[in-house]
């Protein structure tokens, strides 16, 4: 899979309250959650971004509560993936489970600037900065995770896996 998009830069320790404030948790409708994504960080954020854009953040992205609403809001807002120095454990699981690709890279976070264009090759495990032509290595998404993401999340994966097992029998 190739992911291409414009960079939005974020600091360390972006917590789930910043990603989607608790006052909007009375719904789990992705389109509605998307409207408030990063609202307390930048009220105009969802208006500024275009479909396919990428968040590049510091360490511990997604720390705080275990709400699955956080990656759902990011995905529904149109972001194609998140790159960070590191992720909080439960956010990491939740992002993959709902089908939002995430990548860890120290270098790219330090070296790219907002507005630059990145291209990620999930099979090769490379991130290319199309604005500077520099190529970085990132963690390869393991085969299993690629499968989960490509079908759209863990729920869809379970659906397919159940079908496959039925055929096997």
């Amino acid at each position, binding site marked *: 899979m190739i992911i291409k998009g414009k960079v939005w830069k974020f600091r360390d320790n972006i917590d789930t309250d910043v990603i989607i404030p608790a006052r909007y948790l009375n719904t789990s409708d992705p389109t509605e959650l998307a409207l408030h994504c990063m609202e307390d960080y930048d009220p105009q954020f969802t208006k500024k971004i275009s479909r396919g854009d990428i968040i590049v953040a510091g360490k511990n992205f997604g720390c705080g509560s275990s709400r*699955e609403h956080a990656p759902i809001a990011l995905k529904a807002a149109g972001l194609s993936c998140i790159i960070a120095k590191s992720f*909080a454990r*439960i956010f990491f699981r939740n992002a993959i489970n709902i089908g939002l690709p995430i990548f860890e890279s120290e270098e790219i976070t330090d070296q790219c600037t907002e507005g630059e264009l990145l291209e990620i090759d999930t099979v090769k495990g490379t991130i290319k900065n199309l604005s500077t032509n520099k190529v970085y290595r990132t*963690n390869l998404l*393991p085969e299993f995770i690629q499968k989960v993401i490509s079908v759209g999340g*863990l729920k869809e994966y379970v659906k397919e*896996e159940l079908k496959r097992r039925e055929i096997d029998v």
Partner: protein
Amino acid sequence: MGRTIVEKILSAHTEKDDFKIGDIINVRVDFAFANDITAPLAIKYFKESGAKEVFDRKKIGLIPDHFAPNKDIKSAEQCKLLREFAQEQGIENYFEVGKMGVEHALLPEKGLVLPGDVVVGADSHTDTSGALGAFAIGVGSTDLAAIMALGEVWLKVPPTIKFIYFGKLNKWVSGKDLILYTISKIGVDGANYQVMEFSGEVIKRLSMDNRFTMCNMAVEAGAKTAIIEPDQITLEYLQGRATRPYQLYKSDPEASYEKVIEFEVSKIEPQVAFPHLPENAKPISEVGYIKIDQSIIGSCTNGRIEDLRIAAEVLKGQQVHPEVRLIIIPATQDIYLQALREGLIDLFVSAGAAVSTPTCGPCLGGYMGILAKGERAISTTNRNFVGRMGHPESEVYLASPAVAAASAVAGRIVSPEEVK
């Protein structure tokens, strides 16, 4: 190269065992469970995924413990969902009020989680079962739905930090004090993503109940889970409980660890974690004058029989301070019954304590002991975040059952020495 106990367990549960730390692997699950908060969503996702039957009726636990006995209409509806799903799917390990207990105390007690198991619970304190030498992790509802359908979970192979405790424990110093002390040294994210392996001569001598308490709070240091190598004490605990065969794994001497941290325990005093983080622990001698309104003894951290025995030892011949509410909640029905037979319940009630049927209740600010604005509690539970036990302007101090019992008598936070 040697392997840690966690690597060995994972390797026995996955197809390819040539994994490295950081790799993502799929592992078979021996036991999965959820409670009245997390199960309803997991059941919804399970159904939405098109699954018809759970992967194994014997390997799933549904435990209504947080707001049960039902505290209000909403929780009654949630618990009803669990009950109906259990009936519909023929899930054997559904625990009705009257047989129920706080999940992390109940499952080991019933012999449902065993050494060498991969245990996954939709609750962050699933790490408690690591005390048996199982790999036990907490996840969210979507994960649990997938496990109920497929019997597998994906996970990232974690590095392990080894903790070695040596020296002699002081009187009144328990597993709770060791873990509070440890968290105060490494911080609330000190073990992020990693496994905490507790070892050393102190752990080898520690009772199962104290081991459960230590593993329970590993998540308060951000850990993925905690683990203790099974030994004679583990085997004695399992006698008459284990319902199926199990495997005992040990770390190889040459296993590689992310870090090794040693603690000499003889200078450790009973600890008290100040609001609003579990890492704010101070030795009891430095606590100062802190008046309390309530004392809670219970929860998945400290609601086991030994905890009640220690509380009784402190409360014997004493009365609860007239301005304090002491609430004691045995973590399971069996613990309750045992306490009754040993005369502990009589002693508690005579001392002026309220004793409740098992429930999480006040631990998460659910019910059965909510704090008003400005009130202060000492509690044997595991979290003292803002508003955890009630009003956002109330305060929770975490400590052992000995300190919580002594403080209930004194009306302020004190060492058990002061009332004995």
